[in-house]
């Protein structure tokens, strides 16, 4: 006997992602999915970004980690509302985890940063309902990574080339990194940044402001 199931395992997840997106529209929020390798500087970037944007727009953060609340504590110390998710082994956030986190966040701010689990593979495969995808890629990871992990870089609207203050100690120049990213992330704006020194953070913040304005310039505007 044969039983037809015809059940799309991703459809349920896509429905939740769409619901998250609808909630962002309703609240007037721009949501950014921040991904990158462990140690690329995702939390450090947020620590440099939030003091600039939180007073003006109101920010909130969802922190995704397999274990510990360390990142959440770092964000909380800045006075920004944060929900820490522990995935307990799962290698990426999914739309339903983000939906649960949204229940615990005040809806007043205009910017939501979702820091995904440190991993360049799986986070790129799952739509969590965010409006923009940002990859944090540090110069110490090596110039071959964008080619080895193509999906994340192809999906990126912005690439933060982090730790540029370390370039003098490396064999590669900024131009060489930029050439690689031009090839592997043609749809992304690249921001050379040092989250540690603050270099380049202003330009990145201006990009976020422009994205927020663009998202709500035309109420019917659909994101890609």
């Amino acid at each position, binding site marked *: *006997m*044969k*039983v*037809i*199931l*015809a*059940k*799309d*395992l*991703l459809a349920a997840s896509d429905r939740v992602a769409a619901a998250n997106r609808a909630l962002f529209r309703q609240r007037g929020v721009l949501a950014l999915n921040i991904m990158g390798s462990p140690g690329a500087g995702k939390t450090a970037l947020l620590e440099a970004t939030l003091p600039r944007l939180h007073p003006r727009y109101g920010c909130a953060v969802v922190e995704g980690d397999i274990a510990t609340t360390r990142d959440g504590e770092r964000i909380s110390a800045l006075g920004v509302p944060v929900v820490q998710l522990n995935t307990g*082994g*799962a*290698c*990426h956030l999914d739309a339903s985890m983000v939906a649960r986190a949204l229940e615990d966040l005040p809806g007043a701010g205009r910017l939501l940063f979702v820091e995904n689990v440190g991993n360049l593979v*799986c986070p790129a*495969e799952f739509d969590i309902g965010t409006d923009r995808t940002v990859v944090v890629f540090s110069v110490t990871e090596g110039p071959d990574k964008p080619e080895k992990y*193509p*999906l994340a*870089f*192809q999906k990126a609207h912005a690439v933060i080339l982090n730790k540029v203050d370390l370039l003098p100690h490396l064999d590669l120049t900024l131009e060489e990194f930029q050439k690689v990213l031009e*090839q*592997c*992330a*043609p*749809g992304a704006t690249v921001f050379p940044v040092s989250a540690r020194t603050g270099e380049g953070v202003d330009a990145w913040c201006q990009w976020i402001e422009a994205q927020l304005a663009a998202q709500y310039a035309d109420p019917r505007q659909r994101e890609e």
Partner: protein
Amino acid sequence: MHELALVEEILKACQQAAASHRMRRVTAVHITVGELAACQDALRFAWEACRGRFPPLEEARLEIQEVPARWACPHCGTQYPEPLPRCPGCSAGHPRLESGLELRMDYLEGDGSP
């Protein structure tokens, strides 16, 4: 390892379907998996490890139909099987993934109630 979570989700759904159709034994579960959605070997390994906990699927085979990944240029429509950052036809960026992320349960086979 998201293959483990996927397999548990599939087994749970099959268990429900088997119960509602009063199946005594499920012999095979047929699924469609995009090349980029999950690793076949990891799925099979997780299947072997988990199926014993989901009666009546203890002996069920997992039959995987794979869908190859394909990208298409949003600009000129050229299709290509590699994640090229730029279209080989017109060198536009932002290739669109046409297939390869499918994850579908198709049907299960087994013995009904006597």
